[in-house]
């Protein structure tokens, strides 16, 4: 397996995540897309780690996973509160913070 294959897969995953983040309205889906993008990045890290025969990339992946876990906890809490207050899961309904 070539480095290129990993990178192309990573690119595709990231693209799916990014497009999903923009077009999906459901908060849960947006979350999932976010995770997808993070994991696309993780994949790149480990691919390079293997390719360059260095451990740095893998260490970074751990950091990303820790942050992602924390972010998921906070994000889901926000989602629950949003649902309780607004009775909705659409991100477009949470738009009061504007000019």
């Amino acid at each position, binding site marked *: 397996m070539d480095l290129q294959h990993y990178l192309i897969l990573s690119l595709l995953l990231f693209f799916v995540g990014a497009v999903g*983040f923009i*077009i999906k309205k459901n908060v849960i889906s947006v979350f999932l897309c976010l995770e997808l993008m993070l994991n696309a990045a993780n994949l790149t890290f480990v691919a390079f780690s293997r390719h360059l025969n260095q451990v740095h990339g893998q260490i970074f992946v751990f950091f990303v996973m820790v942050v992602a876990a924390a972010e998921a906890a906070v994000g889901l809490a926000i989602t629950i509160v949003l649902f309780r207050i607004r009775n909705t899961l659409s*991100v*477009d309904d949470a*738009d*009061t913070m*504007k000019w």
Partner: protein
Amino acid sequence: MTDHLWLVPLIPLAGAAVNGLAGKRFSKSLISVVACGTAGISFVLALASFFDLLQFAPDQRHLLKVYFTWIASGDFVAKAEFLLDPLSAVMILIVTGVGFLIHVYSIGYMHAEDGYYRFFSYMNLFLFSMLILVLAGNFLLMFVGWEGVGLCSYLLIGYYFDRRSAGDAGKKAFIVNRIGDIGFILGIFLIFMTFSNLNFGEVFHRIAEDPQRFPAEAEMGILTAISLLLFVGATGKSAQIPLYVWLPDAMEGPTPVSALIHAATMVTAGVYMLVRCSPIFSRAPIALSVVMVIGILTALMAATIGLVQTDIKRVLAYSTVSQLGYMFVATGVGAFSAGIFHLMTHAFFKALLFLGAGSVIHAMGGEQDLMRMGGLRKNTPVTFWTMLIAALAISGIFPLAGFFSKDEILWSAWSRHHPLVWFFGFATAGLTSFYMFRLIFLAFAGEGRYPEEVRHHLHESPRSMTGPLVALGCLSIVGGLVGLPAWIGSNTFFRFLEPSLALALNPEPAEASHASELLFAGLSIAVAGAGIYFAYRMYVVNPKSAGEMAIRWKNIHRVLLRKYYVDEFYDAAIINPAMNASSDVLWKRVDAGLIDGTVNGAGRTVQNFATVLKHVQNGLIRSYATWILIGMVAMLLYIYVFLRGY
């Protein structure tokens, strides 16, 4: 004692600090003890320094005490240094001696005033600044004292700050003095540019030892320029034409302040400075002529205004301006020691006149109008007799102090070939005795012209006030005896001052016989006597005649009463144009139009842009994400397209 010369000014400063910082909690007697005590100690120390100075041989009497380097910046070095020589010794004795007496007087005069501690704190601060001024060994330190006394003058003129006129008078004094100070500081700059030094001794020696570079100039040169600039400073501080207008208004301050600052000491600082700089001035005949002309014009003009004023303090204020004019005449004709001599005797009798006027005002319960006084001789005998002595002294009656000093000035003017100046000075002497005795007769002679309730209030002032009056009265009698003219004996005062003036080019006056000098002295006494006689005729024998004369020459009377319309002229020519330019052009156009316009315009431009751009922040996360994505793609494209080669 000269080793501790620095204590002379520093002790009043300590008094000012103690009273100024903690005086609010002190009792009045403690404040008085601190203020008068420090002034008294300072006087004793000055006296000790003076006697120490006498131990030296006359040509050794130039003690420069360097304490520390105050400013050092490249070539420019200014040290904190005091110079004790005969000139500054005389000055510190006058300042501390008269100052001490006036401090004591103030205990009685100010006892009922609010801000008692503030008054004494300022007075002590004034003594400190004035002593710095006269003891300074270089121009810059002198300037510090010069500004210090200006500040104290401002603070004390505006002492009754709840009275609008007092605040205005304080500001007027301060601003007019600033105008003069511009000249003074420019003069200092020019001295530094020319000599790269500001120390008196070094600058003067440089001039005296290099006659090629600094000749006695027949025409305009660097020394003339320096002299004229310094003289501008002197006209401000010493109230000469054209900057004399602040002094009469300064009478808004408490009377002891008028006596100490605006008669005896601060206003004479200009004369002191000119005499201190005599090595420069004596080589600049044009500048000296200017000094002489300004001096004699001021003397004559102020004396004529003094003829008709009815406020007792204003009469004395114009008299002070006039006498200062005499001192400038003396320096202008090159008789520097005569100027200092008159400075000293004037300090005695004019301080006495002001303190006496204060005593009268005190007795009358605040009344200052001569037209509402009269007959006070019986009620306030000590004040009457001491003021009479002072009036005789200022009129130049033999053998009181003023006779010797004024006669010396007039004689110097004549013997140095300025007959016209002599004549005007002679006429001014007549006017002086007239207006002084007009004041005396209006206040003390005849019947009282005051309401009945004032009559019950009339009383002689307390001991603390009459004591200084008597002391100054004695000085006014004997003060002139140190400078006897040649036809009586030898002039001790002039010989004492000689070392300070050694570097001045002093053209010998024309040889004259004692007989002619005696003749001129006789003329002076005669004109003084004539002035007294006319005052007696007009205000005692026939009190109505004064009013009749005022009506007969009502145009002249009005012009004099309105002080030649000088204040009105300044208002119209300088103050109003400046105010209008400030408000119509600088405020309404430059400030409100240009500056505010620029600032507000900048703000409004940003606001307009923001009105459009703020819609980007629409609160929709998906929109933000899109923008982030677009931005990221744009950056990647940029890197890919433009930075690929690196």
